[in-house]
């Protein structure tokens, strides 16, 4: 079933309070300061083990085969920020989801729950095992937002996501914006529609 943007907003369970968003932005400003001072950014919520699994899954959701993907965008930092602030009520979903992921890893690689021991195809197999869960729906949303969302939330680092899709965050544009509103490309040669 196609999901329209409005369905998505409607069906979304992510209903954070505005103060939490503001707090998240405040965190972001501090983090941006820390980066400019040359300090590494610590996680605000994630434990290293969960982070290792999540970064591997994110790298399969938006891979880096044809250019920067979730890894280069720092989508993991977005997830961390989300769970630390406006999506803190999703922590339990992540905990149970990661448990299912661990079980899927053990099935593929007996005796191990470590994603790092798996090949990329095996990692995709893990995702196929959980792709219809609510956890995966939220993880996918977080990874996409961590690739294409506002820089405030620590993802989309260096605007790699925006560059990839051709989005430009300038405050002002002048026409022609694209191919079809350029009078040079008017098949009638009149450019009258401008």
């Amino acid at each position, binding site marked *: 079933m196609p999901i329209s943007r409005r369905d998505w907003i409607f069906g979304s369970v992510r209903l954070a309070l505005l103060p939490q968003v503001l707090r998240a932005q405040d965190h972001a400003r501090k983090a941006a300061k820390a980066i400019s001072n040359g300090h590494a950014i610590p996680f605000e919520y994630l434990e290293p083990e969960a982070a290792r699994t999540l970064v591997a899954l994110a790298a399969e959701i938006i891979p880096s085969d044809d250019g920067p993907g979730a890894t280069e965008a720092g989508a993991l930092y977005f997830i961390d920020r989300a769970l630390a602030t406006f999506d803190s009520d999703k922590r339990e979903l992540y905990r149970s989801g990661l448990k299912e992921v661990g079980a899927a890893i053990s099935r593929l690689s007996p005796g191990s729950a470590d994603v790092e021991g798996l090949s990329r195809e095996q990692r995709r197999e893990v995702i196929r095992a959980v792709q219809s869960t609510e956890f995966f729906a939220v993880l996918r949303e977080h990874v996409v937002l961590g690739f294409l969302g506002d820089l405030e939330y620590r993802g989309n680092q260096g605007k790699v996501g925006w560059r990839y899709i051709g989005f430009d965050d300038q405050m*002002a544009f002048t026409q022609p914006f694209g191919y079809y509103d350029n009078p040079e490309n008017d098949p009638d040669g009149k450019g009258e529609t401008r």
Partner: protein
Amino acid sequence: MTTPAFRPTDEVDFVVIGAGAAGGVMAKELSIAGFRVVVLEQGPYLRQSDYSHDELKYTILPGLTNDPKTQPVTYRKSEKESAKPIKAIEYGRQVGGGSVHFTGNYWRFHEADFHEQTLFGDVAGAALADWPLEYKDLEPFYTKAEYDLGISGLAGANPFEGPRSKPYPLPPIPAKSSGVLFERAAKKLGLHPFPAPLAILTRPYQGRSACVNCGFCESFGCEMRAKSSTLVSVIPMAEATGRCEIRPTSYVRRIKVDDHGKVTGAVYFDRNRKEIFQRAKVVVVCANGVESTKLLLMSSSNLFPHGLANTSGLVGKHLMWDLGLLLEGLFEHPANEFKGVQVTRVIHDYYAADAKRGFYGGAGIDARFDYYPAGFALSGLPPDTPRWGLEFKKTFGHYFTRTISLLSHATSLPVESNTVTLDPTATDAWGLPAVRITYSQHPDDVATQAWIRQRQMEILEAMGAKKTWGDQPGGFYTSRHLMGTCRMGKDPAKSVVDSYGRAHDVANLFIVDGSNFVTSARQQPTATIQALAYRAADNMVRMARRGEL
């Protein structure tokens, strides 16, 4: 600015509840006429410096809209079901209301919209009715709204529109790629495309800047003050009179009534959740098609046991929905539709209802792009796109700049069993009852969508789309056009207010917003909400000067 601060114990002339599309107009018109006005607004008083282009904050989280965590809404399809919490309706919740974050579409209703029952006859299972006024009664007020607020467009370009007394104050928006292709294709099909009438400045106007094409209109506040919200247009005029106080974070819980059945003012929670009673000679409710009704139902009393102004039993009934389908097309070259206002070209060729089709309904169609980056990747792609992996990434990477949308704006019939009521158990963070929505689409509304979907597909193909996809008829999504629930009419047994928004039951109570709508026309209610507000205010001023209020 000399904004007064009235004391709640001062009996002001008017208390206006809600500072949105209608309330902002009311504030300006009443204060300029010399009356003392207090406007109580649920939400905060934000400025353009408070806004940003943060997609998460404004399109996913409730940055400028009602927050279901603090004000839950419950929904059910029919009375037989129990209602579940879900954000079924959405409204702008700050000074300026929905006029702050709306896309800016500013369509006048057509002449026929005011008497469709006479033209079309009854529709089984619906309460289709004529309005108690005609287009010619509202025309001067449409014009007034266009000049006061700053609306751009091209007079005469829409051959289906009623006569207008003046051209638009601002020139039309130039076509962007979606508009160029749409205009060319529509003409080829024998249709009549015209520049979208928009509450967006195409030139500097009244001290405000023209649009700079940043692309963040829908769901966002405008940093340039180029979107003609009431926040940046009429509300500053009201405040400049020195007779109007806008009181934000003031959430009204009750309208008080005296023993003679006249209202005496409004009780609200201030920012510290302290209850305050603001006295007033007249109460004007402009809180939107859902919140106004909620307030009337919460204001029941011995005199009005079923809710204030509800002798007819119709308060809360005939809720109409924001219906229409968003269809997408993929094009060969980058259109970069993320730049510029969402919509530049429109058609009204399929607007009129026609009994020959076998169902009631019609729609307008506009060419636009309705997505921001993450939202597009998450929900704008064809249904056969993988949901993750390299193919997913490549698809949103290729499609983002090459996708153009056509959005239809379709009829929603008034049906008595589609209602706003108070939820019997769920409450909000202030302890007030949650709004409960009961709604399902009339079969003719679904038939209209199926029919208009084919028209949209024809146009997308004529535009040269390589691939098309999008919404299916009868789908369900959040409504942002809140209409019906306090319908206007001449007969007090069949309506809640008269054509000036005056409650049939209470001489000094007015309800003026989308709740007054008798029919949904073809969506895009803001121009008509505001024209009705100008007309209602004009009448209130005359009545008050005659000592009739």
